[in-house]
């Protein structure tokens, strides 16, 4: 993301809007700037802020006068008064930032918006996670911290060493150069994203081992890790995962429940 230096009036509204804190006022020029190394190209500022199209020199003059009299400003906090935010054309490898950060961009590998994962949300038609299995959804960078692929690789290599199965239809898996070792393409390791999800599948009996490995690796990362675990329920709608999670000391309070109402409807499938 860029900020048009002619249009910007340094009102500062975009600064708290940035999920990763990459926007700041540069005192040398009196305009807002984006720290491009930290910006994850999520477009939250560009898309989320409402816009006026005021004449920048006029706004700057008014702001100068108000400031001279120590007037307290009280503008709408979600408006860019001069429409100064401007997305840039992204090329490889920076383009992966947007793919993993802007929820309106569908992932090429899965065709799904958001984080690009289906998990057990469509398990009733995909059969991805079966009874006796657990699907792990390990998310990096969320909420509001961001993560670089180098940190994600620290986890994927540790998980690969446990012999887990990485989900094929997953955006991070699609960027692996060596799935058996959990290695991610070297040219994107330094790229920062708002969040990315690693999905692996194991037997229920391996859940404690994976949970401990995830916790151990997470301690050494510079980001936050949000973990979800799923399973297929039995014919009575009961699951055998909750007890394992509670024994391991995790809360099993909130979750997603697939109601099993999906079915194949496309002709010819």
């Amino acid at each position, binding site marked *: 993301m860029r900020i048009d230096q002619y249009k910007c009036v340094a009102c500062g509204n975009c600064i*708290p*809007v*940035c*999920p990763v804190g990459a926007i700041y006022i540069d005192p040398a020029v009196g305009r807002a700037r984006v720290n491009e190394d930290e910006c994850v190209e999520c477009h*939250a500022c560009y898309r*989320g802020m*409402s*816009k*006026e*199209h005021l004449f920048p020199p006029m706004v700057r003059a008014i702001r100068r006068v108000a400031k001279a009299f120590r007037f307290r400003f009280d503008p*709408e*906090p*979600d*408006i860019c008064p001069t429409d100064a935010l401007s997305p840039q054309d992204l090329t490889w490898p920076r383009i992966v930032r947007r793919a993993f950060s802007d*929820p*309106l961009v569908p992932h090429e590998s899965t*065709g799904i918006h*958001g*984080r690009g*994962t*289906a998990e*057990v*949300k*469509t*398990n009733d*038609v995909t059969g991805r996670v079966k009874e006796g299995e657990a699907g792990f959804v390990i*998310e990096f960078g*969320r*909420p*509001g911290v961001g993560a670089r692929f180098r940190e994600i690789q620290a986890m994927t290599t540790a998980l690969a060493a446990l012999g887990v199965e990485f989900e094929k239809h997953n955006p991070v898996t699609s960027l692996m150069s060596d799935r058996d070792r959990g290695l991610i393409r070297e040219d994107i390791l330094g790229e920062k994203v*708002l969040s990315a*999800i690693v999905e692996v599948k194991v037997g229920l009996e391996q859940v404690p081992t994976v949970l401990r490995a995830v916790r151990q690796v997470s301690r050494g*990362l510079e*980001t*936050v*890790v949000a*973990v*979800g675990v*799923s399973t*297929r*329920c039995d014919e009575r*709608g009961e699951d055998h*995962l*909750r007890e394992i*999670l509670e024994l391991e000391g*995790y*809360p*099993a*309070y*909130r979750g*997603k*429940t*697939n*109601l*099993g*109402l*999906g079915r*194949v409807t*496309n002709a010819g*499938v």
Partner: protein
Amino acid sequence: MTNTLHRFSEHYAVEPPPNPRPVEDDFIVFAMATRNVNDDGLVEKYRTFARLALAHNPVNIGDATKGGLFRPQRTLNPLAHWRRDTTPEPERVVEEIDGPTTLAAVFRTREDMEGFVRDVRAANLGVSINISAPVDAAAACCKAAGVTRHSVEYSLGFQGRVERLPDRAVLEISTMCGHGMISHGLVRKLCDWVKEGRRTPAEATTYLARFCTCGVFNPPRAEKLFDRVRTGGY
């Protein structure tokens, strides 16, 4: 899209209190199709889902590719600072559905969610339907609606550098947009503004709702949380 799984509550604090406050006003139901499996006639299926939801008092509905009931405005004039339109646009959400996406509806009560799940079951849309809520509430809803749970996914909360996360009030509000489009910084700023009386909890909530691109933000819950912040109840 794990955008609703990790909504923060006291249950997920690093050191949870002995009796965490239950979440009783935040229930999400969403529909998701699978490419080449059940995405035939998808626009009509999703519109049906959205219209059924509107009959059960949702506090938000949203299309993950277009937005929710509250959207940013592209061409404001200076008068907007005093006369800004904050009317939710449910019909716009329904009309703009045009292809693959995820459709979500957010409810304030379990009764509303149950009524909607009953209707969705009867509509037999064929797309996958999920509840994102406290697991026990979802299970009770399934039982009441005569649905057998197919699969379940548990949130285990946050680990790693949790000291980089903000305080719980900010976290509880900002994680209502799991895509991270509602920044901690803006929530923190609005908490301060609400405390200073510069904005009401309702106004602060509406600003935030515009940033949520998929409509899973729960405005009444946010308003309640802002009000608790205002009076120092956090």
